[in-house]
């Protein structure tokens, strides 16, 4: 998971459970609550939640940040669908380095684990 890699590069420690459960209080990710609400709003097609999060991000980080956040969420409306519709497996070279993380976050239990 590249969030962990980013933390290793910058010296920050992120609570990766926040990715699974959507709670960001203790994750130390700046504006994590807003980012989570924005991702949930767009991916769950909830316009009320999306609008509130959008306004929050614009107010705290600015308009350009909101656009870049929307862009990443849009991109990750695509990658998962492309992977899961074609049965793309995780790369061999990722299996061992991610084993502990996958177990800790119970990611291997996902139906899309091929």
């Amino acid at each position, binding site marked *: 998971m590249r969030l962990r890699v980013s933390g290793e590069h910058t010296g920050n420690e992120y609570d990766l459970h926040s990715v699974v459960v959507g709670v960001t209080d203790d994750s130390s990710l700046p504006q994590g609550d807003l*980012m989570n609400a924005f991702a949930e709003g767009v991916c769950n097609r909830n316009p009320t939640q999306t609008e509130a999060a959008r306004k929050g991000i614009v107010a705290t980080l600015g308009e350009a940040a*909101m656009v870049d956040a929307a862009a990443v969420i849009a991109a990750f409306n695509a*990658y998962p669908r492309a992977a899961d519709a074609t*049965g793309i497996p995780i790369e061999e070279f990722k299996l061992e380095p991610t084993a502990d993380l996958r177990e800790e976050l119970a990611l291997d239990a996902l139906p899309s684990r091929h």
Partner: protein
Amino acid sequence: MANLFAVAPATIRPPLLSALETAWSQLAEPGAWLTGAERTAVVAEVRHAWNCGLCNERKKALSPYTVAGEHEHLGALPSDWVDVIHRVATDSGRLTQSWLHEVLDAGVAEDEFIEIIGVAILAITIDAFADGIGVEHAALSTPQPGTPPRERLESSTPGPGWVSTTAPENAGPELKEHYLNGRGQFNIVRSLTLVPPAATQLFGLLDCLYMPNPSIRELEGIDRSISRAQMEFLAARSSLLFGCFY
């Protein structure tokens, strides 16, 4: 060129805006296997899928494969295409290889399948961006005339997933740029390469929405207004919301 997001309430960086407009235009053009009219009909159908009663019932079920019925559809496409479009849109995390085999056994060519999902995913992606920044979805484009060549790519081989792909070492000039910088090591980059235009059109947009090479440290040379950690949180959280392991 489409004039997408002309009234957007936020400034969109020019390369991204250009990529969005290019992708939207490509959706109405003839593809490698589908006509412009068919591709436009896929876009319309994928938007229709969100309000499909069968899809909503399946989404709530423990297994979507235990709920039978007929999709609520626009009537422009074969039923097997409609099932592909609706399932990819509404419940992609629970697609199975046996389901795909049923689709192919019903007569959908593997190449057609790749182009159908490529168009559907591209449309979903552009609409999701519109939802994010708070603008209306773009109006459907007028289908462009032309006959798709419908020629199987001889360099394709089975795998690494359920469908055939073109490995980087077998790729011709049509995929040269797609596989630049060694990113063919990532299986997702190979996913749609059975139909090269489907792969290059989708990733041409994704490279601007996210980044061309996620292997870089932090955001070296990438101009973004959020941190790499924030980007990766959004990426991982969105993937989890769709139940995606990859």
